[in-house]
């Protein structure tokens, strides 16, 4: 009996996620982007298991700035380190931190926004004023200051600093949606049924805004990858022994490297561009899908 009821559920009411995925597959460009992302992610995470990070980042003075060859597919940098290996590990690190920052800032921003929108009134007023203050801060500079001041510096602390200044956008978006959603009768009905505010927020209201959340988080992922590589480029991201895509690009701040040794920075530049573009493609396609679904619903 259990089995056939489950079947009814599945054929009759696809979840918002599966609707979004179906729309995504119809969109050629987005599908290609998604496949590209999955391949890249699988490739770098898989391959980095076999690569020895310590060995790759060890300085080898006999192989400084070597152009691409059989031994080093993409040559070496000023420390004689294999660029290809750094590219693989760097992509992995950039992706990982992008995802981590997106999740941390997303979860905090969603909670903040949904609380603000759901309770409204004075709570909302106070919370929104705080966001207004955060929005006008020159956040890039402040992140740099915090990064340079943190003594115990790790992936987690780096992500937390970045997330601390990138949760406002999603919080605002979720807040305005929650503000609309709580006025709908189903949320009001839950109140009269004795459901607690916590359950109304997380079990009734949130499921109705999942597609917005998925779309926003995807687009945020793209900008966080960009932000991380930008910080690493300026020298305020990972230390050199933990390469990211931005680290490879930062070598191009040396005019000699930029002018004569394209193999060090160009692959990383292209890879960042492709990654950000693909993530955006997927995000935009999801957004279109979500909109269409709302029109139909």
């Amino acid at each position, binding site marked *: 009996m259990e089995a056939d009821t489950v079947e009814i559920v599945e054929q009759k009411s696809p979840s918002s996620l599966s609707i979004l995925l179906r729309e995504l597959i119809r969109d050629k460009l987005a599908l290609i982007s998604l496949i590209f992302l999955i391949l890249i992610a699988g490739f770098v995470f898989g391959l980095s298991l076999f690569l020895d990070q310590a060995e790759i980042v060890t300085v080898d003075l006999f192989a400084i700035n070597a152009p691409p060859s059989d031994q080093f597919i993409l040559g070496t940098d000023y420390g004689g380190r294999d660029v290809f290996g750094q590219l693989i590990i760097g992509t992995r690190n950039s992706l990982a931190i992008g995802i981590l920052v997106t999740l941390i800032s997303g979860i905090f921003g969603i909670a903040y926004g949904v609380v603000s929108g759901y309770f409204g009134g004075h709570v909302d007023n106070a919370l929104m004023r705080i966001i207004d*203050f955060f929005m006008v801060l020159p956040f890039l500079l402040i992140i740099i200051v915090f990064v340079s001041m943190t003594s115990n510096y790790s992936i987690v602390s780096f992500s937390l600093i970045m997330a601390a200044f990138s949760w406002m956008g999603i919080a605002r978006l979720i807040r305005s949606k929650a503000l609309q959603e709580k006025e709908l009768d189903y949320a009001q009905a839950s109140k009269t049924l004795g459901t607690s505010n916590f359950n109304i927020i997380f079990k009734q209201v949130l499921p109705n805004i999942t597609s917005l959340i998925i779309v926003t988080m995807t687009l945020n992922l793209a900008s966080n990858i960009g932000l991380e590589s930008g910080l690493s480029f300026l020298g305020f991201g990972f230390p050199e022994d933990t390469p990211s895509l931005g680290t490879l690009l930062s070598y191009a701040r040396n005019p000699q490297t930029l002018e004569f040794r394209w193999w060090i920075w160009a692959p990383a530049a292209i890879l960042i561009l492709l990654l950000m573009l693909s993530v955006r493609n997927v995000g935009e396609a999801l957004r279109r899908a979500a909109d269409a679904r709302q029109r139909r619903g």
Partner: protein
Amino acid sequence: MWKFIIRRLLITFPQLVFLSVLVFIMAQMMPGDALTGLIDPTITAEALDLQRERLGLNNPWYIQYADWVSGLVQGDLGQSFRFKMDVTALISERVMNTILLSAVSLIFTYIIAIPLGIVSGRYNDSPLDSVITGYSYLGFATPIFIFALVMLWIFGFQLGWFPTSGSVAPGLESGTMEYYISKLYHALLPGLSIALISVVSTIQYLRSEIVDTKQKDFIVTARAKGASENRVYNKHIFRNSILPIAAFFGWEITSLISGTVFVESVFSYPGMGLLFLESIMQRDFSVVTSLVLLFGAASILGALLSDIILSIVDPRIRIK
């Protein structure tokens, strides 16, 4: 409208206070204090303590904060220990470069974005529009520092059309015509790099605004009256869509700041962004905090200016 402006001004003040508190806390967290920059190995620890006491560095934090703020108001930002000079003097040396760079990039942004936005909106869904939309889609996904690097590589190094670093050719005397031309010449490529990326939001705004307005009833009415297509666009659509753009630059200041930090770093252009990066690398913290404060104040005041201009141009915003 006055109500809106007054209310907006009332929000600005606490924003500035919040910024100053944040910067003050940052300054307190940083190692060293105002005296670290002056340390002379011959001074004994007792003398140093005496000096601290005299400068009020042992006072409770709120008195220190009050002293610091009153210094700020008088334009005293402290001492740079690297350059052994007043931070105010140091920054005013660099500030003109950054203002020049920002002005160049804003001018380029408007010169490029307005025609492209208008074409894209007026002939929407034409091949030309697809090209422009495609460009802005790419531009959105491109981090500015990568774009600036590529610009520098192509036009600076490969083609050699533009200088690759600095803000002026060495050996030119300040005040001469050549000096100013050289300054402008040095700002062109970095300014263009910022502009080509920052145009995308303006293009998209203009396009969607024009496409929206096109379908409004008053445009249909104008057409029905027999107004020529050009007249409809020039008199009715563009005027409505372009005015708000004039107000956007204030909001752009925040992104312009990040832009200049990256671009000044790529082009080794001695502006405030590069000064910030150098100072933080060399742990010259009084300069760092001053710059954060200045950049922050610039974005707050920029947003204020934009809001006010927009409330004058666009009555809709006043209602909220």
